[in-house]
């Protein structure tokens, strides 16, 4: 159900892109107006999300500890999986965000005859997720050659590294291939792993298909249906310098579809699970040091909790007789409650 819904949604966007490209009166809307809307919705949306999260306090310090705590000098602390300093947390977060440390731990539980449970290493999800995210990032950065003039220093650098194998003209980029393979893995894993299919929502398939659409149209434009890159760059520079010109006739239909997909992703991003991009930085089980017994963590609403501790006085009042009988020390010989 979710798969079909997502496929139809992406097909509808494709159709919309076709219309935008071929109905000349709509060119301006699709090449200029929609991108502006998308950029604004993306930036505002992400800010709103972060502010919304940040407006709730972190009431308790609850890091998930993934290794030995700092305790006695002769016991070796695991500074990255159980950090007790700012630097350690930075390291833990860096490992998490850049290399998906937690996902790297992934195992696969199997029940065998016996009964016997085994937990084999299962790094595929880690590998393809990492390939997907890094490729996507590098491809995005490479696109700065269309977005700024002159292009930033890192673009040629990335192009050189990414095109390392020097095959085909134009050069085949490793990240293009990696992105497509990783997307295919992530999508078919959702479809064919019965457990993952069971938990999947339309909103899990849709972004995968949408990003696949972006990747495929991009690759088609680069290698097969050449589009006028000068016209593209002119358009993008116009948009980003807030002086958009009328879109050139030379822009191809593929470009319009590609651009609409990208705009859809920007709009969809802040209102979907894709906000994990910014959310991961705020996760309290990862971004806090395990200094719980060293430094007091203050909770702004702790005094709102109404129920009071049953006091020793109340306790002694209730049990004074038996305590006296047992020869236990008392604070008061007699109750003040009559």
């Amino acid at each position: 159900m979710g798969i079909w819904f997502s496929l139809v949604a992406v097909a509808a966007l494709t159709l919309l892109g076709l219309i935008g490209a071929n109905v000349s009166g709509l060119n301006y809307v699709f090449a200029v107006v929609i991108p502006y809307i998308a950029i604004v919705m993306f930036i505002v949306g992400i800010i709103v999300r972060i502010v919304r999260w940040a407006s709730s306090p972190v009431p308790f310090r609850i890091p998930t500890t993934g290794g030995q705590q700092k305790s006695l000098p002769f016991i070796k602390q695991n500074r990255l999986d159980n950090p007790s300093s700012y630097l350690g947390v930075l390291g833990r977060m860096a490992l998490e965000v850049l290399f998906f440390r937690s996902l790297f731990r992934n195992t696969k539980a199997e029940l065998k005859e016996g009964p016997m449970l085994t937990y084999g290493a299962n790094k595929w999800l880690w590998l393809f997720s990492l390939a997907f995210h890094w490729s996507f990032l590098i491809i995005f950065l490479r696109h700065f050659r269309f977005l700024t003039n002159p292009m930033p220093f890192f673009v040629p650098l990335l192009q050189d590294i990414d095109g390392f194998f020097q095959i085909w003209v134009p050069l085949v980029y490793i990240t293009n291939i990696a992105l497509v393979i990783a997307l295919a893995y992530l999508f078919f894993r959702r479809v064919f792993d019965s457990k993952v299919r069971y938990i999947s929502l339309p909103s899990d398939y849709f972004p995968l298909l949408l990003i696949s659409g972006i990747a495929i149209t991009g690759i088609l434009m680069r290698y097969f249906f050449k589009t006028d890159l000068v016209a593209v760059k002119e358009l993008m520079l116009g948009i980003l310098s807030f002086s958009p010109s009328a879109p050139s006739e030379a822009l191809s239909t593929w470009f319009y579809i590609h651009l609409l997909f990208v705009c859809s992703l920007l709009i969809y991003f802040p209102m979907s699970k894709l906000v994990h991009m910014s959310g991961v930085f705020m996760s309290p089980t990862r971004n806090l040091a395990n200094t719980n017994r060293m430094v007091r963590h203050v909770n702004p609403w702790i005094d709102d909790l109404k129920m009071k501790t049953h006091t020793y006085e109340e306790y002694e009042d209730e049990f004074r007789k038996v305590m006296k009988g047992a020869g236990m020390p008392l604070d008061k010989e007699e109750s003040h409650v009559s």
Partner: protein
Amino acid sequence: MSLKMKPEELAQTIDYKPPKKHWLDVKPDYKKGTYNYAGNPESIKYVHQPNPRKWQPYEEDWKLPENWKEIILEGFRERLDKFRSLKLFMDICVRCGACADKCHFFIGSGDPKNMPVLRAELLRAVYRKEFTLAGKLMARMAGATELTFDVLKEWFYYFYQCTQCRRCSVFCPYGIDTAEITILARELMNLIGVNIDWVMTPVANCHRTGNHLGIQPHGFKDSIEFAADDLLDLTGIKVDTPINKKGAEILFVIPSADYFGEPHYFTLLGYMALFHEIGLDFTFSSYASEGGNFGSFVSHELMKALNGKIYAEAKRLGVKWIIGGECGHMWRVLHQYMDTLNGPADFLEVPKSPITGTVFENARSTRMVHITEFTSDLIKNNKIKLDKSRNDHWHSTFHDSCNPARAMGLLEEPRYILRNVMNKFTDMPENTIREQTFCCGSGAGLGTEENFEMRMRGGFPRANAVKYVAEKNGVNLLTCICAIDKATLPPLLQYWIPGVEVAGIHELVGNALVMKGEKERTTDLRNNPLPGKEVL
């Protein structure tokens, strides 16, 4: 306690293939042996919680207040504003499924709603419906659902099939913590009086008498003195039994099962022998006679109220600092919550071992030290004499209790002690220990008789790992530092791998401890003959 199904038969009922039907259409089946009984109204009344009444989860009518939906949704909104964790965890899950087979209840039951991701989705579906635009507009397509009685029934079933062990959180790429989600879901249900008795009655007992069994002060004193008498028989030494002693240097807080349950009791003997041997100036408290905090299984408010006794008592008695005994979730609360809930403990001093002079820098704010930290420091500084051979009848392995492992990182201290008090120690396979440890399957209030089948299922991964080292290495003792473990691992092992016993770390310390002036020991603390001292 028993289960008719044999272990092999139970294993055969486990099928990891999810059903055809969409999860939003599958209703929970309150099958006998897989859920807990409802909270006793008297207990609920005693701690002033909402809607005390007689009801049971298998009944059609839960006798909910008329506006129960509004109460829950209002409570939900309030908690979203109070807990960034909740807001974030509702929003950022990508359903990658990495957590799916990390949950002991999923591994042991195959029920897809025991995959941590779906457990949380039960809450998220309502969150989307009520608090997001997409959920309001697209309903089911956005994975949103209205809060109905059926949804509530699922919440009750599955949030009381989570032991807040946090294993899934270790594997989650965003650190989503199901324990946090479960605590808050239980807190929401508690607003309309939907809770379980093995949480609420212990809470009421702790509130009143200081411990979850409801033992009154003189009963507490009797138990401690009884233990001293046993130690006299075993070692020939009469140890002190200070209770509520003002001006003692250290307050010692233990889980109440230590003085009332077996095998916990042997750990108590170990603590008392050790403290006597090193001449520690300490006191027990009858008022704060429970380190465990059943409040943490149902709401932050109750957790705070119960936890408050420890600092209050430390202040009243005028001690300098506090040591805490072997208990799992007790240490989650002491380590991650106490200072925030009831601190600052500025009336105490930074803990410094009077025996070794070691300052426990890692506890410089809460001023409370874990007993295994304290003891490993004694051993490292050669302050106690240990005869490892007195534990030669045991070959042990160590079960990392969930909370000290994943909410503290107390991994090496107990192992360091074990290696110094016994000759034979073997760890279980690496995917089942330390931060990846498997729960006993009975924590967070689920250790009841009526929930026995689910406990055997949830404990299956732990028991299976024990079986592995028992068969491969000859392990015959599972050690742990948690009172719930000590209560629930014995029946678990009895079911899955009979013949392996359960013990606390300080029982083995007590066995190995060579005390000044002791008589020749012929038995261990359990009164079993020591190796080479068997009477033929």
